[in-house]
């Protein structure tokens, strides 16, 4: 009641205009997304990044170089179309026939590349004066006292015009028909003489150009910086989901609804993150309502699949030698370096734990997640608030943190039961943003997040041994990491691993073989979140303090990218991933390249890797290695053969020879 009472209803008409305008911009971004998805079947996670980069081109042309705003817009449209063409021609087309998720991963690589490049060129956080296309002077809406800016009016008209124009082209023109044919079945379309490549390229160019328009229009309305603009893609996704990723009119309606739903909470609450909470709730609701199993869309998602066989049995003696050598190196080498590097090494092993959590979830069960740092945040902030705020001792706090992470992981897993692939990716991004911009933001839950200050966590002692020194703490994290790796390896080679892989391959066959698919999927989410939570809990004393900035969506994205690059199906990859993610930027400080460029490098490697070695780098090495050291046969002595009884109804001429 207090909230409603404190609301200023006089703001309602003004906020309605703002909300509808925001909706118009979301619609513009979403139309491009839907066009690309409908024709090429790729959900373009880089759509926001393309909008962002194009908007910065307009900024460069108009604000910096002083040309008229219209020239800036034109430059942005050209830039957007060109980027769209580059993405399609050189990174999506080579993946024809591969699983939709591979293509999504490539677009995530582009997201990282474009975002980082824009940050390097135009500055990550600096103030950028937006390109004002149309005057903000307005007119009074007939019959009311509401003032509508000409810029707002233009935005809404352009959005509606492009939406219905695109719908009309798809519906009534020959080229639109061939676009729909390509969307339905590219192979058949090719057989009927449609130039599939051209149609796809056109859809990417047109969709990206629309994204560019959206980018230029939105810059006066949100923080004009690379990250905020890139994340507009989430709102575009939400709008597109309301239109089932196919219907353009419904996408526009969804976008308007979303714009209003994000704006109205400001009447009640000063918490800037409230809009994000609304987006999250809408994503969840839309996914739950629209995407029931068995709808055509979901089936289409399941159609393509990357076929990656499980590595053959390895050679145990050789493996043991290598593992022992790696552990030995891991113990000795840090002794040669300073405390700073020892701390970095400990940090990299903790990040390795987060990569390991993806090995369970993505590698075994095949469920993608872009919110692993949110699970880690649960562990870290539980430890932080209990140790820093309530004077708990570290170990019980860590235990509780891991348990809470498992709980949250299972909760996230429940909507994920119905989703897979792309939709799960969207869901987990929504979860990450919900944590990032709402739950951990100052003012929402300060007793947990610490508000604007951060929690201080001292390093504990273990069995009477103080872990305060860098090397002692490093050894401790090494031990934890090795135990976790061993546990996950045990998991992957026994019943649990087989069951999870079986679920990834065929849920229906797993269920009819007696596997409780629901329970196992939730289990894998729980185990994965528990591992991430453990990492978060260790990160608290590792860094010494816990603050929200360290557990953002960007980190989740980077760790997922790294996990895919190093090979998410291999337990051994976890260590490599952690080391790469932490020591990579460190290495860059010794080169002329800025450490800020690191995500660009990660993104580029990600794109190349998906195209060149789909299994990931580490499994690729392992496969080569196994060729050198072939495995021993799994069963040295075959068990007694069964006696097959003579078969009825058979004549002598058909004697049983079931040899192949």
């Amino acid at each position, binding site marked *: 009641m207090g909230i409603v009472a404190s609301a200023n209803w006089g703001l309602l008409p003004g906020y309605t205009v703002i909300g509808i305008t925001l909706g118009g911009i979301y619609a513009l971004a979403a139309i491009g997304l839907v066009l690309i998805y409908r024709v090429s079947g790729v959900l373009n996670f880089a759509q926001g990044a393309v909008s962002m980069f194009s908007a910065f081109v307009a900024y460069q042309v108009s604000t910096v170089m002083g040309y008229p705003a219209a020239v800036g817009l034109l430059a942005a449209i050209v830039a957007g179309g060109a980027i769209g063409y580059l993405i399609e021609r050189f990174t999506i087309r080579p993946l024809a026939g591969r699983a939709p998720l591979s293509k999504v991963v490539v677009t995530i690589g582009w997201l990282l590349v474009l975002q980082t490049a824009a940050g390097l060129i135009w500055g990550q956080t600096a103030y950028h004066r937006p390109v004002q296309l149309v005057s903000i002077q307005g007119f009074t809406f007939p019959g009311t006292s509401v003032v509508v800016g000409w810029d707002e009016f233009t935005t809404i008209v352009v959005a509606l015009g492009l939406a219905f124009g695109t719908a009309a082209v798809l519906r009534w023109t020959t080229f639109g028909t061939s676009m729909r044919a390509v969307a339905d079945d590219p192979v058949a379309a090719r057989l009927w003489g449609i130039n599939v490549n051209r149609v796809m390229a056109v859809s990417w160019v047109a969709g990206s150009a629309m994204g560019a328009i959206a980018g230029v229009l939105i810059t006066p309305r949100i923080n004009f910086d690379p990250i905020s603009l890139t994340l507009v893609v989430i709102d575009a996704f939400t709008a597109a989901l309301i239109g089932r990723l196919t219907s353009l009119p419904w996408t526009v309606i969804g976008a308007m609804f979303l714009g209003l739903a994000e704006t109205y909470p400001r009447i009640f609450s000063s918490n800037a993150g409230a809009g994000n909470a609304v987006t999250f709730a809408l994503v969840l609701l839309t996914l739950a309502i629209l995407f029931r199993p068995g709808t055509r869309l979901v089936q289409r998602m399941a159609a393509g699949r990357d*076929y*990656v*066989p*499980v590595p*053959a*049995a390895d050679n145990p003696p050789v493996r043991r030698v290598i593992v022992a050598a790696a552990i030995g190196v891991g113990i000795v080498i840090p002794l040669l370096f300073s405390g700073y590097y020892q701390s970095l090494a400990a940090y990299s092993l903790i990040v390795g734990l987060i990569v390991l959590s993806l090995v369970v979830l993505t590698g075994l069960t095949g469920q993608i997640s872009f919110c692993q740092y949110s699970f880690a945040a649960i562990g870290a902030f539980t430890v932080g608030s209990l140790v820093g705020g309530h004077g708990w001792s570290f170990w019980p706090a860590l235990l509780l943190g891991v348990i809470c992470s498992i709980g949250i992981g299972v909760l996230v897993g429940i909507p994920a039961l119905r989703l897979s692939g792309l939709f799960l990716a969207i869901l987990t991004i929504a979860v990450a943003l919900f944590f990032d911009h709402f739950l951990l933001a100052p003012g929402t839950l300060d007793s947990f997040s610490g508000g604007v200050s951060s929690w201080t966590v001292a390093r504990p002692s273990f069995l009477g041994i103080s872990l305060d020194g860098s090397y002692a703490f490093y050894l401790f994290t090494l031990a934890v990491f090795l135990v976790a790796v061993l*546990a*996950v390896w*045990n*998991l992957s080679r*026994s*019943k*649990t*691993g*087989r*069951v999870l*892989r*079986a679920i*990834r*391959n*065929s849920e*229906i*066959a*797993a*269920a*009819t*073989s*007696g*596997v*409780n*698919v629901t329970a196992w999927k939730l*289990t894998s989410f729980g*185990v994965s979140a528990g591992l991430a939570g453990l990492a978060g809990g260790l990160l608290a004393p590792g860094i010494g303090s816990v603050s929200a900035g360290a557990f953002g969506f960007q980190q989740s994205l980077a760790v997922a990218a790294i996990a895919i690059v190093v090979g998410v199906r291999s337990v051994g990859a976890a260590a490599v991933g952690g080391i790469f993610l932490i020591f990579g930027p460190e290495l860059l400080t010794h080169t002329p390249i800025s450490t800020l460029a690191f995500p660009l490098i990660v993104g580029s490697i990600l794109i190349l890797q998906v195209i060149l070695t789909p299994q990931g780098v580490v499994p690729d090495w392992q496969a080569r290695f196994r060729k050198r050291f072939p495995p021993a046969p*799994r*069963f040295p002595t*075959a*068990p007694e*053969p*069964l006696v*097959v*009884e003579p*078969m*009825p*109804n*058979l004549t002598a001429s*058909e004697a*049983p020879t*079931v*040899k*192949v």
Partner: protein
Amino acid sequence: MAVLLQADDVSMSFGGVHALAGVSFELHRGETLGLIGPNGAGKTTMFNCITGVLPGYRGHIYYDGRDLRNLKPHQRARLKIARTFQNLELFDELSALDNLLLPLDAFSRRGVLGDLLRLPRTVFEERRAQEKARAILHFINLDDWADTPVGDLPVGLQRRLEIGRALCLEPQLLLLDEPGSGLDARETSELARLLASVRARFKITMLLVDHDMALIMRICNRIYVLDYGRMIAEGPPEQIRDDPRVVRAYLGDATATGVVSTEPATSGAVG
């Protein structure tokens, strides 16, 4: 003979299409029942209703005297109902042996913690399960492919492996959905032999859907014929072969005789 499976007035529709319209039949313990009918007659839908893949049918399906209605697919599997799929649903990335291990895994009661820590019980059960799976692998004569990812195997071997996986469930009831589709004449003949030895060795009750009349005639004790979601005929193979309603269902009214093969050795795929 005791009734193992009884369908009582089962109906299922998708939108306006009545895939099953009041189908009733009985399957006795130990018999091999054939279910035939033209494409789209509702055979696979019937399988999906029995195994719980399609919830929401009308009517009742009793298994061993128990109504299956509220049971999930995995719970029905635990009642020892196994099936194969028309469009092969193997775990493509898993090796042949691991595919066979899966039903055994599903039935084992140990949890994640035991696997994480690799407790002695895990090691012991793994060994036991591997021996069992190995025996089935030998039975279906796929020993040489134990470690091959099954996505790499030819269709004939995949079909056999799917039967093997179903056998690992130690089923009382085995539902075979067109095990002969995509097989050549020699492979079909091997399949017939395999099915006969499955029946002889494991004493399993089988429900078999296929278009291959020769296969059906050779293996089944009794045949039901479905057409447009209705049971149109029932009886022993010889009787079904000559039943005018069946011939009409398959061939329409105009042509009448001689196309449904009477020679068991030729594998004429009808429909």
